[in-house]
């Protein structure tokens, strides 16, 4: 692999996040590496159970341990390994240099506190801002994320906002300290498409203005196509394909990526009779199949795929996939 570029803000190396649950070990993330550069958006795409959310939660060390544990891995933020850092250092970084937004804004907003209280706290803790300065900055950020009448609404409670507006409040809170890395976990999945378009545009605008690196977790290949620079496709806890967004969509290497793209009904193409569905189900992470984790659902699987882990095959300096077939076609 190439050495990380100088403007790399986050580098994840060989991350493993396992969970011990009554007798089993569930391998939610099983050897994942990626980097994100300043101002860049990396899409982590996959289905439920692929490990995309767990990878982000691990990076911020937000998972309760036990049951979570990390048999291997380093998460380097500006050279500091977050996995090994003391909790106090993480508290200093979280919400300031590293921020996260979730699918459900009520996961990060406290229903009992006014929006003002929640937004100013971030600035008072991390920036030692005076109450008056924090309130001014919070109102300015609410205006920036498109909340009308922000000076009045800041004193309301989360339940007084609609779903789309709550999402904006959460984004405002995450961006108040101008973080270097923003983890966005399905930030628009619960929203209607016309509101999704507004929120994605907002994240892109703020990112461009602040130079934030964004790790966007999503299952929606349309959102990936429109908003990411690079994409990592996850399956069963592994990144099975990674490349620039243009490369992956123009020339998907992994049969799983190809399968996902082929299975989508599309409004920009004539309708087909049947969709090319991927057969079968994603594997049980407590009982992963031997060899390539995708082989039970793969139309190209051979005996070798059932036996051995496929190597990483790179077709360009930026585009690679874990697949024997992709390696042979190289």
């Amino acid at each position, binding site marked *: 692999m190439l050495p990380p570029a100088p403007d790399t803000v986050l580098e994840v190396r060989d991350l493993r996040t396992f969970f011990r649950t009554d007798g089993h070990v569930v391998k939610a993330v099983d050897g994942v590496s990626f980097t994100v550069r300043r101002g860049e958006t990396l899409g982590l795409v996959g*289905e439920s159970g692929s490990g995309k959310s767990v990878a982000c939660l691990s990076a911020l060390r937000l998972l309760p341990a036990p049951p979570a544990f990390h048999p291997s891995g380093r998460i380097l933020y500006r050279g500091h390994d977050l996995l090994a850092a003391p909790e106090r250092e993480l508290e200093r970084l979280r919400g300031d240099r590293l921020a996260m937004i979730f699918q459900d804004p009520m996961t990060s907003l406290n229903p009992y506190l006014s929006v003002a209280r929640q937004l100013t706290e971030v600035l008072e803790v991390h920036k030692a801002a005076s109450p008056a300065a924090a309130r001014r900055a919070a109102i300015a950020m609410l205006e920036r994320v498109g909340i009308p009448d922000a000076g009045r609404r800041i004193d309301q409670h989360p339940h007084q906002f609609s779903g789309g507006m709550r999402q904006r409040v959460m984004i405002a809170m995450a961006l108040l300290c101008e973080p270097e890395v923003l983890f966005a976990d399905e930030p628009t999945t619960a929203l209607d498409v016309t509101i999704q378009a507004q929120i994605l545009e907002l994240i892109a605008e703020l990112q461009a203005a602040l130079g934030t690196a964004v790790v966007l977790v999503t299952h929606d290949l*349309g959102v990936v196509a429109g908003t990411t620079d690079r994409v990592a496709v996850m399956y069963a806890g592994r990144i099975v394909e990674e490349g620039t967004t243009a490369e992956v969509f123009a020339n998907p290497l992994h049969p799983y990526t190809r399968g996902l793209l082929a299975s*989508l009904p599309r409004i920009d193409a004539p*309708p087909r009779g049947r969709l090319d569905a991927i057969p079968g189900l994603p594997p049980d992470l407590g009982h992963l199949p031997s060899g390539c984790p995708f082989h039970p659902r793969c139309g190209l699987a051979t005996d070798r795929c059932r036996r051995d882990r496929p190597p990483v095959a790179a077709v360009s300096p930026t585009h690679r996939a874990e697949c024997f077939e992709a390696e042979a076609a190289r």
Partner: protein
Amino acid sequence: MTQPARPLLDVRDLAVTFPLPARGLFGRGREAVQAVAGVSFSVHRGQTLGLVGESGCGKSTTGRAVLQLLKPTAGSVAFDGLPIHEWWVRRGGRWAWDSRLHDLRRRMQMVFQDPFASLNPRMTVEAILAEPLRNFGLAAGRDRRERVQRLMETVGLDPRFIRRYPHEFSGGQRQRIGIARALALGPELLVADEPISALDVSIQAQILNLLGRLREELGLTMIFIAHDLAAVRHVSDRIAVMYLGRIVEEADARQLVAAPRHPYTQALISAVPLPDPVRERSRDRIVLAGELPSPVNPPSGCPFHTRCPLREERCIREVPPLVAIAPGHAVACHLVESPPLPASPVSRHS
């Protein structure tokens, strides 16, 4: 296209109003939500109508009111010519189905969004699928078990799993059980309410294919309710777009996506992200300002006027009627008869 004279389903001016909990001690100024504010459509035998719209647009309520799972406040629902909206009786101070509506369950069924919430976790697949057969006295003993096994095969479930419980199945398999239960009585009309939105992408295609195959093999008539326009277009012959309790546009599925005329339909189509970075980044997107108004307090005039980029004075005052602008294409917009609106950002590329 020639259609039989009488549609299987004919819905006229359907309205559903939900009273809100009374405010204050004496219930002064009791409010109501008009979830469905007068919708009309018909579905011919063997056809699929897609109902699409965002949350709160009334699409699910419309589906339930069509099946009489809730009593319409106004309007009519004719199923195979029968005025089924009249088949309710007052019983113990509440509205209940009369015996004719009970019997009609055999002919119309529903598939729900959440396959876990809609299956009894304490019942085996066999018990779940046998229940409707037993309720209608359709089969008993070994005969009933064979019918259950055939149903499982029809929806692509292994009949060896007949003794298993819902939690032993994946989300997609549970949705297959929900579909099998809906098919148990051999219905003619199936209303599927967001049947794939709780499922993973790779499983959604499996269920869409299953519904398509069943429609062909069994000649089902379907109402497919979803917010995902691409999925709706894939399965539907016709599509009706709903906004705040009203149909704002209805057309042939391809026509609606290729040449939408209502400004809301145009914005909705342009907001659907395309899984193609080149097209996705080069198209002009109509990003609507503002939020969906609350159905408790809908705007005057055209329900879309608060967000419409083309709003005129008249739109604030008058509700535009749904009128045919071409054969089989109806639009509810004051501005549509006049010069055509710009083409959709999607059709430009197709």
